[in-house]
């Protein structure tokens, strides 16, 4: 198991290098000069040149990349150009917040999808299954930023039940408070994933129910709950895999939802940084997300291997 994970980690290195190159280059081709977000609009070229040198932007690209990567590997993601803070200080809390939101959404989506998906796979012809199928399709078609606004309109402005923005009441805090602030963003974020996951769970479980070993289990006369356990365990690698991918999608779509809910997450930070040409933040942010995504897939693979002896021994 440990060697499996290590091997996978080794395989990830080229991918991560590629990611870092793209991250680096992506920002290089963005028009606009980060210097402009530092100096006053009427600054002279000489004033700009000074700042440019300070930022190391006057070196050749390869050198810039080398320097950047060298520092990144040491955990130094540089300083934010516009916010004058170490990037890590800016990103890590934001990443934590995004992970809270994304994990809550993924967990909610996962649980709901599992229940509904398994139910409709077991009773494909039932009306409830048809209803769920319709609903999950519908949820896939809903733009989540739009849903977010509507949710705020209903639950915060009109009914006043839930807060409309932020992740804590001013001066307040604590678990209950966080949960209250989580509900709407989670709902908006999880929505489309619930649809995707439900459908996937349903088709996976339906597929497993067709398999011979499930018939064989029935033929052995074991309890239905035991059979369900077998079904779930067999479906779990696929389901987890897709949930992992969805987690990535959720992580990404958080940009939109975070903006609407003023959720202090990494999506907002990156989006703002793109606007401000704050290269170090964008580079680090995208890198962090991409790495998180890659690691997440590794985790999913590892769970898969832990659950499936065939993979483990391959």
């Amino acid at each position, binding site marked *: 198991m440990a060697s499996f994970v290590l091997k996978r980690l080794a395989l990830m290195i080229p991918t991560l290098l590629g990611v870092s190159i793209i991250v680096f280059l992506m920002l290089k081709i963005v028009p606009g000069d980060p210097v402009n977000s530092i100096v006053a609009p009427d600054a002279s070229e000489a004033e700009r040149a000074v700042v440019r040198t300070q930022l190391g932007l006057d070196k050749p690209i390869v050198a810039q990349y080398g320097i950047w990567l060298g520092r990144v590997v040491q955990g130094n993601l540089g300083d934010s150009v516009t916010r004058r803070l170490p990037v890590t200080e800016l990103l890590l809390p934001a990443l934590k917040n995004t992970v809270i939101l994304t994990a809550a959404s993924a967990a909610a989506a996962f649980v709901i999808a599992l229940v509904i998906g398994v139910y409709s796979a077991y009773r494909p012809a039932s009306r409830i299954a048809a209803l769920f199928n319709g609903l999950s399709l519908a949820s896939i*078609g809903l733009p989540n930023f739009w849903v977010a606004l509507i949710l705020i309109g209903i639950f915060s402005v009109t009914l006043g039940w839930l807060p409309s923005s932020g992740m804590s009441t001013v001066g307040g805090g604590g678990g209950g408070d966080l949960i209250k602030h989580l509900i709407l963003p989670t709902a908006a974020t999880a929505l489309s994933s619930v649809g995707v996951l439900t459908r996937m769970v349903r088709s996976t479980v339906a597929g497993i129910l067709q398999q011979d070993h499930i018939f064989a289990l029935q033929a052995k006369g074991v309890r239905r709950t035991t059979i369900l356990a077998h079904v779930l365990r067999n479906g779990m690698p696929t389901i987890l895999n897709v949930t992992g991918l969805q987690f990535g999608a959720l992580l990404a779509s958080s940009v939109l939802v975070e903006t609407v809910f003023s959720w202090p997450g990494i999506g907002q930070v990156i989006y703002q940084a793109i606007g401000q040409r704050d290269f170090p933040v964008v580079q680090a942010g995208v890198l962090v997300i991409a790495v998180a995504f890659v690691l997440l897939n590794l985790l999913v693979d590892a769970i898969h291997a832990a659950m499936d002896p065939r993979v483990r021994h391959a």
Partner: protein
Amino acid sequence: MTIHATTARDAASLRPISREPSRVLLIWRAFSRRRSALIALAVLTVIVFSCVLAPWVAPYGPSEGEVTDRLMKIGSAGHLLGTDEQGRDILSRILYGGRLSLLSGVLPVLLSSLIGGALGVIAGYFGGWTNTVIMRSLDIVFSFPAILLAIGISAALGPGITNIIISATVVFIPPVARIAESAAKEVRKEEYIEAARSSGAGAGLIIRSHVFRNIFSKVFVFSTSQIGVCLMVASGLSFLGLGVSPPTPEWGFMLNNLKQLIFVNPMVTIVPGVFIFLTSLSLNLVSDALSDALEIKR
């Protein structure tokens, strides 16, 4: 050449099988058995046609209107879906806007299916290093969450519908390629590929005549299911202000413009959202039914 082996006679006495309907007809039959899919197809057809024919069916031009007539309610006389912040007829703008929206939903998927499909097939068919290089490179792109990648590309290239299409295309290439690759890998193992190789056919011919044919429906079904997603990514990018230039209407862009009004005049704001929703829901329903009709499990 005239041979009449005895077995030929055996075979001739096979139970005559009546000429069965063509494949397309069979698929259509299976498809049309689902009422929801038919309704969705109808909705989609209406939306697509009225958008394409917008200059003829829209009651007003896309930028006609007086600011004094602004923000009329849904159902107002002469303005079925109300007017927007500049006093323009929302229905007309939706219809005109649909052209770009649909284009930005369909074109990236089409392009990415072609590019991703080709890459996937090449990777899947040849395997080995070719596969490693192509698929690992795509993995890199895939490691970037889609929307972020699209935002990045759009930000790099500047706003505009062309750039949205380009970035959405890039975003959708890796998943298509993955589907195509795994399908091509499967097909590669089939004996008819070996048979083709042993008849002396080169890789190009085999890919063109066997592999593409056999992965087509998988890629097709996946792609159709992505149109709705793509529509949403594109409108999300427009929503973030990376989309079209005014006064060109586009759904995501309209939604963005009207967003300010959501707590003031919600009904007017809801219209573009509803259209995005309806279109993508219909697309999903159609693609869903289609995949069943083509008997492809996803």
